[in-house]
């Protein structure tokens, strides 16, 4: 089994020129966790995750304290929305370099990369760097498990 056999092929992506607001709308509409960013030739230039967008509302301060279990009410944080300025910025301000695999990559290699980089979705690219699909942990994991039925 190769990653190309279990990935989703009809991938939603966004171009570099889009705004944060437009990206957020796609996340809501498609109900996804990772949005690949491509140039006009459908070449993958980066990714933006749900988590990157959410960091605008829940800033890094949470990571400064060892645990937040003693905070029972997040108060103003719950209702703080990013400003219009922030939402109208280019999505490139939140873009991260993508960890990708090629279509012909093995499943366990892809899964190991996901574990190592703490990813839930991974863009799959062709030989020339074009976006061809996205594979999720669930896609890869269940495909691996499906082979267990053949074990005698």
């Amino acid at each position, binding site marked *: 089994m190769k990653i190309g056999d279990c990935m989703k092929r009809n991938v939603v992506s966004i171009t570099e020129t889009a705004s944060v607001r437009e990206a957020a709308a796609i996340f809501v509409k498609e109900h996804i966790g990772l949005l690949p960013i491509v140039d006009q030739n459908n070449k993958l230039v980066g990714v933006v995750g749900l988590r990157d967008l959410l960091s605008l509302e829940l800033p890094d301060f949470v990571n400064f*304290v*060892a*645990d937040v279990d003693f*905070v029972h009410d997040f*108060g*103003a944080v719950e209702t703080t929305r990013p400003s219009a300025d922030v939402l109208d910025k280019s999505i490139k301000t939140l873009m991260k370099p993508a960890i990708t695999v090629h279509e012909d990559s093995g499943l366990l290699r892809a899964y190991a990369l996901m574990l190592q980089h703490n990813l839930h979705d991974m863009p799959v690219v062709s030989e020339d760097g074009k976006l061809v699909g996205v594979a999720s942990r669930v896609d890869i994991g269940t495909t691996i498990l499906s082979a267990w039925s053949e074990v005698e």
Partner: protein
Amino acid sequence: MLLSAILSILIFIISLVLIFSEKMNRSIAGIAGAVFMVGVGKILGFYSEEAALEAIDFNTLGLLLGMMILVAMLEPTGFFQYIAVWAARASGGKPVLLFVLLGSITTVLSMFLDNVTTVVLIAPVTILICEILGISPLPYLMAEALLSDTGGVATLVGDPPNVLIGSAAGFSFNDFLIYALPIVAVAWVATLVLLRFLFRDELSKRPHNAEAVMSLNPAESLDDPKTARRVLIILGAAILLFFVHHILHISPSFIASSAAAVALLWVQPDIQETFKKVEWSVLIFFSALFVMVGGLEAAGVLEAIVGLLEGLSRIPPIWFGVSLIWIVAGLSAVVDNVPITIALIPVIQGLGEAGMDITPLWWALAFGAGFGGNGTIIGSTANIIVATLSEKTRTPITSSLWNRRGLPVMLATCAIASVLYIVLYKTY
């Protein structure tokens, strides 16, 4: 002799430039400079390994290391988080009250613990509390940095320059309480009042979610009450011993080392984890500076500087002290106050040997080095830490903001220190 002097000055200045320009880690620049100094000293015959070891003030290092180990054990217990959460609840979400409480806690903690540690542990919880309240953390973060620098001046163990000065001048813990604490108390009130005025807009905004801070549970924020209690008991005992160390004829460094040893025995923490939190680079940096300044002394450079300064003895000693406060403060505002203090200590000792009454000068050095760091965003490590943390919030602390809100505090505290220095001069 002249060649030794020129080369040792050159080594010292190049090392200082590398340290101050922050192009290189200060410990790396320090080690390189120290090794060069000993090497050149051996070739030219003015310095040796034995002399270099003798130049290191192990009293200072022992005191710092002991306190660092105690804090390293206290840190993971969540004690600092606990205090900040307690302050948030006690304030009921009222900005001015929260400001005074967090400021006071930082001052008292940094009187006994390292400023940097205090700020590193209190500032993150401060940001969290402010986010929950929906208010800007700026006034609180700046007050914490400024007040930790200010509070540190009050005691022998509050601040590295004080540890150095106390060790060199032979001042006891109580000497600091008698001569430094009253001035710090006035400076502390002035700092709070001045900051309250400078941040009047931010502090007058009433948070909408004031009741949210009451949801913070102090008991849950204290992760390891048992260890916290043990370390605090030992820390308390150490502070009590500091009060009487000169009567018992034991050094502060021995008290701190003993306290660390007893705490380690009682708690038996994961020693690797505890030692990871000890700032070894600081101890190495201090040692390297001692070795370099020892080289300058051995080459006769400091003697020459003392000779030059003796010409100034026509200046009334009281004004000599006031000038020292401002010169050291000005330097400490832009560069690290530790190298300045370590370099000035033998100069002041030299002036003493030449017959000048140097006791007042030690205090002038302590005030200048302590209050000066408040002047700029890079003036002290505590300042750099709050500025870096604030970059992760919606209202980052910028250099120009510091010049408008921090610099006035430095000028005011130095002015207060100067006036009180003149008034109290006869008592020194």
